[in-house]
């Protein structure tokens, strides 16, 4: 709604009620009009003062800039006369060691904020009714937010955008780290690519015979997968991936066979990625700890790409969103494999660095109550090695429950689960004895992370709206998906 910047006060000169006790009405009207004219002249003078004041301030700023520029020009003049063409630095060191020239482009920010309103418009706003004093209720709130912000918050959209930008930059940095890790990991399993291709041909050949014949072979492969129990070990991992990929082909006859990305352990059909993201976002976050019986197969085998399963579902990154493909494929298979997968998972996990999601699967088994009795015997044996991998990968947000790094203590947190807790109790008891020190370290680590999060928040609060420039730089980070290690390291240091 356009607001008039400057208003001349008595808008209508002659429209005023005349007191009825007067005889000569015409004279009365004339006098009233003349008085209003004088008032108008008064507001006009204020109007003029405003206008000239703003222009004067701007001109003053420019005068300062012109003066500094003049001084710089004079200095340059002197310097140029002192230049001697013979003294020019020709050495290569000078070229490399000199600071590169970067022109500083100042970006205008905070243009349309409250303080930048022209004074007459601010006066217009002050004339309006203020919002109700809801902030008096803030002392009764538990979460420490200002009560008025629920009624009206002028900084709402800026804060929203700020949070979104920060989250996006973090996600992008995580993705870049993942790319790096995957590239490192892919150095080893690259030899598996020819294997994948072969199995596809086998699949196609099998399908030639008719899809009816496909199932038995898959069952055989699943049983062999279960027997191998190879989630973490190199070969088993590869074979399981191959089998899962073939399973995906078998159970998604409608979906086109997706091309295997060289980095992808499990080639996800893109529509399934997007579709399953919404459904499986939260379970994927919990890393298989809260696995419903239909979902266990995805979590254990997919180790490395899991951490960022959620952000990967955004259209930004094409490559890995492995958790979604197994669920669609796993619907037909799930019940038998989980029983086989989870118990053998811990021992082979010790050999692979990307094994961390599997330890959560056994300790908090409320969802796997039916499967829990078989796991306990093999668990304690394999329970020792897995925990060291889990603590480093999980990100800052302390898990409410069931997450891998806080695995042993959660049985008390899962208060509703008492019946299956008897099964997990023998597991964590011996495990905790072995890893009590680690547990304490982990808890302290979480405490440390909470403090760090608080410090980050404090930094944000103190830095205030100067962050706008920093945020615009972060957008540049987003846009430039370059994979320079140096630049990435700089961003890491800078953001933390």
């Amino acid at each position, binding site marked *: 709604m356009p607001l008039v910047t400057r208003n*001349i006060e008595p808008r209508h000169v*002659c429209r005023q009620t005349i007191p009825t006790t007067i005889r000569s009405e015409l004279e009365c009207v004339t006098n009233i*009009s003349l008085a209003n004219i004088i008032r108008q002249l008064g507001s*006009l003078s204020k109007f*003029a003062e405003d206008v000239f004041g703003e222009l004067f301030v701007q001109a003053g700023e*420019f005068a300062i*800039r012109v003066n500094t520029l003049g001084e710089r020009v004079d200095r340059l003049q002197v*310097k140029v006369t002192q230049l001697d063409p013979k003294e020019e630095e020709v050495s290569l060191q000078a070229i490399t060691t*000199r600071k590169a*020239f970067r022109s500083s482009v100042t970006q205008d920010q905070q243009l349309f904020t409250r303080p930048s309103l022209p004074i007459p418009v601010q006066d217009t706003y002050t004339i309006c009714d203020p919002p109700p004093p809801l902030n008096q209720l803030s002392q009764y709130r538990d979460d420490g937010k200002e009560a008025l912000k629920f009624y009206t918050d002028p900084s709402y959209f800026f804060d929203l955008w700020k949070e979104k930008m920060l989250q996006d930059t973090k996600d992008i940095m995580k993705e870049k780290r993942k790319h790096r890790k995957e590239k490192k990991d892919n150095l080893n399993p690259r030899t598996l690519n020819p294997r994948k291709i072969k199995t596809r041909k086998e699949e196609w050949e099998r399908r030639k015979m008719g899809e009816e014949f496909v199932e038995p072979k898959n069952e055989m492969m699943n049983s062999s997968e279960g027997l191998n129990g190879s989630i973490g070990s190199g070969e088993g991992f590869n074979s399981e991936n191959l089998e899962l990929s073939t399973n995906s082909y078998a159970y998604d006859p409608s979906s086109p066979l997706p091309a295997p990305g060289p980095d992808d352990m499990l080639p996800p059909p893109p529509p399934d990625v997007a579709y399953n993201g919404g459904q499986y976002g939260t379970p994927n976050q919990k890393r298989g700890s809260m696995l419903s019986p239909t979902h266990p197969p995805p979590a254990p085998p997919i180790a490395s790409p899991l951490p960022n399963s959620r952000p990967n579902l955004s259209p930004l990154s094409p490559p890995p969103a492995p958790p979604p493909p197994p669920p669609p494929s796993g619907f037909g298979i799930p019940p038998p494999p989980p029983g086989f997968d989870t118990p053998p998972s811990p021992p082979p996990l010790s050999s692979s660095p990307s094994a961390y999601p599997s330890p959560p699967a056994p300790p908090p088994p409320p969802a796997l109550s039916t499967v829990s009795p078989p796991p306990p015997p093999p668990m304690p044996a394999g329970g020792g090695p897995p925990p060291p991998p889990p603590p480093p990968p999980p990100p800052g947000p302390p898990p409410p429950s069931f997450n891998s790094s806080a695995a042993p203590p959660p049985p008390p947190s899962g208060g509703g689960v008492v019946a299956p807790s008897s099964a997990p109790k023998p597991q964590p008891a011996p495990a905790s004895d072995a890893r009590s020190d680690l547990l304490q370290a982990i808890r302290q680590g979480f405490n440390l992370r909470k403090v760090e999060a608080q410090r980050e928040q404090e930094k944000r609060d103190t830095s205030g709206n100067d962050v706008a420039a920093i945020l615009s730089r972060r957008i540049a980070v987003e846009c430039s998906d370059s994979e320079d290690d140096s630049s990435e390291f700089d961003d890491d240091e800078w953001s933390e």
Partner: protein
Amino acid sequence: MLDRPPSCNSSNMAGQEDPVQREIHQDWANREYIEVITSSIKKIADFLNSFDMSCRSRLATLNEKLTALERRIEYIEARVTKGETLT
């Protein structure tokens, strides 16, 4: 007595009308006076607005020139200084 010219009628009747007429004439005169004043006030307001706008546009072009000059000077300074800006 009845042969007075019509003008005499007005002059005689104006004994009653004249003050009213005078008043109305005076009122018209006042209104014209007020109208002149208000229109000149409007002209002043228009002048102030257009002066404000033209001043802002000129100051904006000045600003552009200043920033261009500043950038050129920065570049020239960088060219001229010999390794003094090593970090």
